[in-house]
């Protein structure tokens, strides 16, 4: 995997930094690293070029290079510039119409239909009365897909009558929504290539007829160099108001965000982060910049941790640890809390690659192992969980059978648990108790 940019730059400056001042040579090398990092993240090469030129200008024009922390400062310049291009944070949709129409467009497979469902759910939760409209008449069963997505999030779906085209549907949508008491229409359309003139004309006609307050381009975060062409064409031909970036739960660096932002002059509003209806987040340029630079998405992680962890539960565990009462039961609770944050690999993916996490490969984490640990603890009696010394050979065999594991695995867990307890004893009177006010 890639090292974070900061690591790379630190290496450059360490190598090339002479007596206090950073040479022109060091700057060149640093800019090369920046260029590589961005290209590896799939930022379009032209965008990279002008970006690097700007970073160069800012680095030379200040005393950054003479500072002792040149690497960090150059990274900061890079990040500031990135955040600048990525633009303002996303946020609420503009819904001033009666009804308001949110029109979605994009290439095939970018995630329009899934996104339509997520948006509809968000709108309903904010107290609106949304109506989903299925106007993808190109792909087989697309209307049926939206019907099912709509049913899943509890939002009604309007589809075309027999023989009706997307354009026909568009002409009656507003009136029908009004009559039936809906105040927002989320209009899903067929995926189309930016070079398909007929379909690009069609979406332009749809936009004219629907007069949307939001016209959103849905784009796949994994897109490569071509992002500037597709987003550029959609942006040029259509009056877009924003972008939704999907599939950010993958491990792509998402350089497409930068490419898209530099050609389509509209803000990124939301990001799709999973397959579930709730997996839509407000776009955050800071996080996106960190991600592109391989610096991890620590903010997302913290947010997830806050969602996953029950504060009072955490406090109780910390107290028990401090009093050295930590049992297997507590270990299991802790495991469960941790897993509530989402798949572990995904949690680790959010950590930066450099620093203490260097060499960490999220794909190496074995989620199955945690499941087995839980199963082993589940198969113990409450007394055994309190007092693992009770576990003799026959009990261990029973637990192995009950959990579908082996005696070795049971032994391994007990051994690990003992080590953990020992470590907790060592920190007695240390930071933990102070932190707990004890």
């Amino acid at each position, binding site marked *: 995997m890639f090292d974070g940019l900061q690591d790379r730059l630190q290496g450059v400056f360490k190598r090339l930094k002479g007596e206090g001042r950073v040479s022109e040579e060091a700057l060149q090398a640093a800019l090369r690293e920046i260029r590589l990092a961005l290209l590896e993240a799939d930022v379009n090469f032209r965008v990279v070029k002008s970006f690097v030129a700007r970073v160069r200008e800012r680095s030379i024009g200040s005393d950054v290079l003479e500072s002792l922390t040149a690497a960090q400062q150059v990274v900061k310049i890079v990040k500031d510039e990135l955040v600048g291009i990525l633009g303002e944070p996303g946020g609420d949709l503009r819904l001033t119409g009666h009804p308001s129409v949110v029109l979605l467009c994009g290439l095939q*497979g970018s995630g329009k239909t899934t996104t339509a469902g997520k948006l509809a759910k968000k709108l309903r939760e904010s107290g609106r009365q949304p109506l989903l409209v299925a106007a993808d008449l190109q792909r087989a069963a697309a209307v049926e897909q939206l019907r099912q997505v709509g049913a899943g999030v509890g939002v009604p779906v309007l589809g075309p009558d027999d023989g009706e085209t997307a354009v026909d549907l568009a002409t009656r949508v507003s009136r029908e929504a009004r009559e039936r008491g809906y105040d927002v229409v989320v209009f899903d359309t067929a995926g189309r290539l930016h*070079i398909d003139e007929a379909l690009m004309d069609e979406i332009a006609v749809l936009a004219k007829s629907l007069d949307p307050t939001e016209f959103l381009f849905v784009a796949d975060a994994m897109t490569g160099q071509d992002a500037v062409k597709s987003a550029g064409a959609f942006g040029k031909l259509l009056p877009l108001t924003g972008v939704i970036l999907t599939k950010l739960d993958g491990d792509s660096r998402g350089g*497409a965000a930068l490419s898209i932002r530099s050609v389509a002059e509209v803000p990124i509003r939301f990001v799709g982060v999973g397959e579930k209806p709730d997996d839509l987040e407000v776009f955050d340029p800071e996080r996106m910049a960190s991600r592109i630079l391989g610096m991890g998405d620590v903010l997302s992680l913290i947010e997830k941790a806050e969602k996953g962890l029950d504060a009072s539960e955490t406090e109780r565990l910390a107290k028990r640890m401090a009093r050295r009462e930590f049992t297997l039961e507590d270990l299991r609770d802790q495991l469960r809390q941790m897993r509530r944050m989402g798949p572990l690999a995904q949690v680790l993916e959010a950590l930066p690659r450099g620093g203490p996490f260097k060499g960490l490969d999220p794909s190496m984490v074995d989620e199955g192992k945690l499941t087995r640990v839980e199963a082993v603890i589940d198969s113990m009696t409450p007394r055994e969980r309190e007092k693992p010394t009770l576990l003799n050979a026959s009990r261990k065999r029973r637990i192995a059978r009950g959990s579908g594991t082996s005696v070795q695995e049971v032994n391994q867990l007990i051994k690990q648990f003992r080590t953990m307890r020992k470590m907790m004893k060592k920190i007695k009177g240390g930071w933990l108790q102070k932190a707990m006010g004890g």
Partner: protein
Amino acid sequence: MASGPESGKGFWKKLKRGLLMTHTEMFGRVEAAIADRAFLDEETLESLEEGLIAADLGVETSQELVESVRKEAKRFEGGDLSRLRDHLADRVAVLLLDAPQPPARPAGRLVTLLVGVNGVGKTTSAAKLAAWHQRHGDRVLLAAGDTFRAAATEQLELWADRLDIDVVKQKAGADPAAVVYDALQAGAARSADHVIVDTAGRLHNRQGLMAELAKIKRVIERTAAGWKKRTLLVLDATTGQNAISQAREFTRHVAVDGILLAKVDGTAKGGVTVAIARELRIPVMFLGVGEGAEDLVEFRPREFAEALVG
């Protein structure tokens, strides 16, 4: 090998033309540089590298190719443009051909498992692959193994109807491995030549979903004894360097035999497959070139290489 009626020279010409638009500028600069001087300067080589990066070949592969051009240019004191262009196409073709080259239509009864991340076009590709084999005289059966995405089964059924091919399915949310098991039983009973298994899209960093895929593969290994088996990874041609990560992770779990590169009809041509062949030695086998049932062609490394580099 003969392909379908729609897929002959026309497509490759179109592919080349589309790519040429991208590369005219790059080679224009190379040409100008050569006309000017008798050698390639750094600036020209850099623009060559940019051209390759623009085609999604990735930094490493592009740099390696440019190095090779630099050497070649030295050998012939600059040489002429067409020689360098040929050289570059040769190098790309070598990378592509370095991966194993399995037959598109192996002899004997066959099971094809289609895998890939969300939205790359697996279901459409399943239908097109079925049509391709049908055109070549095979009795095909489709397995609706995507029981997760809304209406995925209905989508495959609509295609199957058009193509007059049987689909084996279960209700939404069913265990995909069970669907596959049923399909293989049905395939044997109805003496099908080829069972094509569609699966739900899954991001390659989701361990649980990858384990589910490995289970489907195990069911195939067990149930279809005596059949040929292959796993094709469907990639979206617009995807950038992340496709390498996709190929690496999928092959780690289900040993991918080849790539079906979908959506080559846009302006992106999937140059990342060159990097994949180079790094992981996974060959491209088919190209999806449109939304119709006929729009699937067999991959031709040399032609693809030429199209990529002008």
